[in-house]
């Protein structure tokens, strides 16, 4: 996918400027990849990297190969153009089924979301289509037992962590920042460069129903794309006299409170105020 941080809208014409924007491996997927690699380090097994995209996406797959992935498949077909998340999940699920015909798939890892769409919908959609258990926003995998096909994960939520026990096969979307990425060795780089990447078109990915992919298979329609308008006003500055700093700060805090009442509620709870010391990890 394109490196979204580099895309801008032209200020005059309003068109999207993506010239020279390189295709990069989705950084969120790097965390998913690292999680999969760690499992391979511990328990062995085979990892297949699967990517749907234009031919340039090959570079991302090659990077995955260099980091220790065994096989790489690029699902690429003009018929996919215009796919939204529903159509994309259909195509990916179908391709994963094809991979599964070569060898059973126990675990599917995806990033939390992509960086161009930021939707976070494709992974859960694929899980549903494959009838796999969905474990989203996973930040740790403390137990994975291949013999009993059982897995325990910590799932992040805004209010704390869920510890979930489930059965393989399952699809895991990995939270960012779960691990440091690795730096491939030179022999691995050379191996990855030489290894052929399999390119699957629609048929090879096992897709027969054309109404499920591309524009036809996409319920959502993009109406209009535009640049966000910049906030025009400057900060409301609190005026204060030399010896009135305390007063100014109190006034500021009043304003913060009015805008973010939940924060104050939290402070009055158990983990706020003086008791919240353990939260700051240095």
């Amino acid at each position, binding site marked *: 996918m394109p490196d979204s941080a580099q895309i*801008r809208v*032209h*200020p*005059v*014409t309003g*068109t999207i*400027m993506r*010239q*020279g924007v*390189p295709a990069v491996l989705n950084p969120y997927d790097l965390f998913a990849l690292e999680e999969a690699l760690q499992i391979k380090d511990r328990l062995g097994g085979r990892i297949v990297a699967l990517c749907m995209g234009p031919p340039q996406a090959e*570079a991302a797959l090659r990077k995955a190969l260099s980091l220790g992935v065994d096989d790489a498949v690029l699902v690429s077909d003009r018929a996919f153009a215009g796919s939204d998340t529903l159509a994309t999940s259909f195509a990916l699920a179908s391709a994963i089924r094809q991979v599964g015909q070569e060898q059973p798939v126990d675990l599917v890892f995806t990033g939390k979301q992509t960086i161009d769409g930021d939707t976070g919908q494709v992974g859960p959609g694929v899980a549903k289509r494959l009838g796999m258990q969905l474990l989203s926003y996973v930040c740790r995998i403390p137990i994975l037992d291949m013999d009993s096909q059982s897995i325990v994960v910590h799932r992040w939520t805004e209010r704390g962590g869920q510890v979930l026990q489930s059965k393989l096969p399952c699809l895991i979307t990995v939270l960012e920042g779960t691990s440091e990425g690795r*730096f*491939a*060795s*030179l*022999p691995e*780089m*050379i191996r990855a*460069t*030489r290894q052929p990447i399999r390119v699957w078109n629609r048929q090879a990915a096992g897709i027969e129903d054309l109404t499920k992919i591309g524009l036809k298979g996409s319920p959502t329609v993009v109406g209009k794309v535009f640049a966000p308008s910049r906030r025009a006003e400057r900060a409301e500055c609190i005026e204060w006299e030399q010896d009135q700093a305390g007063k100014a700060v109190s006034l500021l805090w009043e304003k913060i409170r009015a805008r973010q009442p939940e924060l104050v509620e939290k402070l009055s709870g158990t983990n706020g105020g003086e008791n919240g010391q353990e939260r700051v990890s240095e």
Partner: protein
Amino acid sequence: MNERFDAIVVGAGPAGTSAALTLARGGWKVLQIERGEYPGSKNVQGAILYADSLQKLIPNFREEAPLERHLVEQRLWVLDDRSYIGSTYRSPVSNDAEPDRYTILRAQFDKWFAKKAQEAGVLLICETTVLDLLREGERVVGVRTDREEGEVYADVVILADGVNSVLARKAGIRPELGAGEVALGVKEVLFYPQESLEDRFGIQGDEGVAIEMVGKITGGMVGTAFLYTNKESLAVGIGCLLSDFRREKVPPYVLLARLKEHPALRPLLRDGEMKEYTAHLIPEGGYKAIPKLSGDGWLIVGDAGMFVNSVHREGSNLAMETGRIAAETVIELKQAGEPFTERNLHRYRQRLDQSFVMKDLRKYQHVHEVLDQNRHFLTTYPELVNRAAETLLRVDGVDKRSKEKEVVRSFRKHRSYRGLFSDAVKLWRAFR
């Protein structure tokens, strides 16, 4: 790692890729190592590509290379603070002719060029920095990279690692660059809707314009500025000798900002969206700065060997030429069953001496000294010629003869007749 290669090429710019491509076509097993995310991601140029050297390697490059525009118009401007006097050469090349110069975006061009080498069989590894040359005694036998198990061996190593050539410096092959031997260039790429850009420069289709500028904009420093048209963007930049930047203590981006604000450029640049700001050193030392070019098991090509013709602003073509010639030299030696000793590899230098590369560099070897010692070329003359033009062209009731006299007086006020004469001789000698 255990695997051996016939050759290792360090760097995937035009020099390294030309060498790697030539070797691979000769049936060699080549490992090319690039530190950027992709070839071109660390490379900067104005950029004008001269077709000749590339054409020798890829005759049909015009059909597939990511070229921006072919130049139909070249302007040379001598800038005063507000005005400029200049020349324009325009020659619309017909569609079936083969243009000899194009504007390119290096990040895209280098990626394509490297792909050609890969198709020829070169094994290209990116995102890998070469830290050191590996030696056995005096002989270079391989390189050490920043990856684990990162030592790799080959019969010959070609250094194409650019102007800073960390390798050549560490290995003592080349001394540290002097501030007087390199120019620092800074550049911005500004984007426009294609039609608006074509309207501004009176061009259509793939036609392009290049403007080279000298004069007071460099504030007395030895340097030039440029403006090139790409397909949907303009490259605008300025470069001066690093020693001059050090003396004048002008931040390079300030100089560039001044250039962009010059009344001659501002209207051409307005409403552009700046998408990239780059800086790069350009070897300007010329013929005298060229280091030892080969030794036991190694050769040096492109910017790393200081191959830039600063007068004609040629570099990437010299890079391609030196890369190709280096590769041809080692291929010949191998075919003859001769080892890659310092003595045998000296044939590289001999072949270069016979090529346009060395002939041109020798020709202009005194230019920089002359400019360096005669700063008035860069400050006084631009002002004088601009003022002269203004005087002569203004219709204000003064008769033409008086105007001519005034012009001569103004020149004489700044330079004596003798000075004017010797300036002319110096320049003629330097560029001869």
